[in-house]
């Protein structure tokens, strides 16, 4: 093929190829083998290490933009915690996220109801909803959870809920599970809560923000980290689940290879042109 033709390639061809590479494996999965990395194994181990029946704080800080990456890991973490008979308090600091988080919880609860293990809102779990204030809310929760969230997402009084009987402030939780799409998210929970109230925490985040949290993982401030859809898929593998992240990894694999090829092709064309000029 003529290299100058490649250089002048209409970018709509690139869009079309990318579209097909993403769509194809979603329709007909390839089933590429998945291997869990150390940060994902640590995330899984941190939840495993929590005593059965504990009350866990889960901060779901995302909105529909992060749905493909973050909802699968949220669901797997919820299943993991519910399987360990843990009670889960869920918060959301993203204004556009409470609807999605509420739906995600409902879907997981429905799965358990279908299995004959009904989970009761206010007893086994509670979604405290969205609260404006970012870091101020995190610090406020340190003075008392009901203080920061007097009512849950549906407007029920949190102080009278059975799940809140054992909950006072951050010292009531053995672990904080944060699912984060950016600000406010993991970085702020580490800075305001882990450092100040010494609450052990793990994080699941978008792939683009994962490198930012690696220093926290290495320092031990984060006990585990799931980075993007790959992290979610690894977590599903560790839990022997076949969720949407595992299915999406085939598409992501091909998309990554295509982007790598685009970088190489673009540069090959450039080098060939420069070589031609020098000659």
């Amino acid at each position, binding site marked *: 093929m003529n290299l100058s033709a490649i250089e002048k390639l209409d970018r709509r061809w690139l869009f079309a190829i990318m579209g097909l590479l993403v769509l194809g494996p979603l329709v007909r999965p390839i089933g590429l083998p998945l291997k869990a990395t150390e940060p994902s194994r640590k995330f899984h181990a941190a939840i495993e290490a929590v005593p059965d029946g504990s009350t866990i704080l889960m901060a779901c800080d995302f909105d529909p933009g992060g749905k493909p990456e973050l909802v699968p890991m949220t669901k797997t973490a919820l299943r993991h915690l519910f399987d360990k008979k843990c009670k889960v308090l869920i918060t959301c600091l993203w204004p556009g996220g409470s609807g999605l988080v509420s739906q995600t919880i409902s879907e997981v609860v429905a799965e358990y109801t279908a299995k004959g293990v009904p989970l009761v809102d206010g007893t086994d779990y509670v979604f405290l909803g969205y609260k404006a204030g970012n870091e101020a809310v995190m610090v406020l929760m340190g003075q008392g959870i009901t203080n920061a969230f007097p009512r849950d997402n549906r407007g029920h009084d949190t102080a009278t809920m059975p799940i809140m009987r054992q909950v006072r402030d951050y010292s009531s939780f053995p672990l904080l599970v944060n699912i984060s799409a950016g600000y406010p998210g993991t970085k702020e929970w580490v800075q305001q809560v882990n450092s100040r109230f010494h609450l052990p925490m793990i994080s699941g985040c978008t792939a683009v923000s994962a490198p930012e949290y690696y220093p926290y993982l290495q320092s031990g401030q984060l006990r585990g980290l799931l980075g993007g859809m790959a992290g979610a898929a690894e977590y599903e593998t560790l839990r022997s689940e076949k969720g949407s992240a595992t299915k999406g990894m085939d598409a992501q694999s091909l998309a990554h290879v295509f982007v790598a090829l*685009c970088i190489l092709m673009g540069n090959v064309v450039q080098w060939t042109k420069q070589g031609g000029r020098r000659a």
Partner: protein
Amino acid sequence: MKREFPLFLTAVIGLFMILSFFVPHQAVSVPADFLQQCAVIVVAFGYVLGGANVLRVNFDGIYKRQADWPYKIVLAGSLLVTLFFGLKEGRAWQETSSVSMWIYNQLYSPMSATMFALLAFFIASAAFRAFRIRTVEAGLLAAAALIVMLGRVPLGDVFTQWLPEPLRLGAVQDWIMNFPQNAAKRAILIGAAMGVMATGLRVILGIERSYLGGGE
């Protein structure tokens, strides 16, 4: 007085909040709690102010027929319609049959996801047209990017299965993330933290006054 009083208030509250970090006594922690609650309320009011500002700016743009004014009608109209149904339905907005939930599921959620999904297409195009290796540094960046990009997905290990375990793309990707990337990121974090501390001190001491607006 117009400028001195806000500066005095900032200095006193700033120093008090720093003190509350180190002194757990009730005499400090109770007023600090109160101030935290005030901060949450002020942020909530910020949304009201933000919404009102969006409407003011866009109505002004529509009135003056600024560039792309029809889009401003869509924005202001969407805001008002969502606000109307949100206020009308109250806490019942989370019911699956509510109009607010329909707006959230059928409009907001797909549009928000679409914005992210578009990145894949633009990254492919940008990778082909803009990612040119002209210097050694750019070469290093490209090599690291290719290894991490391929090493993060299962295909990377499939391609390099014939190599010893530590030389496979997944293992090399892990090394890049854990060492060079981590070292650089930590340096950036420490630098940024020092910058934040310096800015915080400048605000508390009244040296940094740009947040007051209006100019000198």
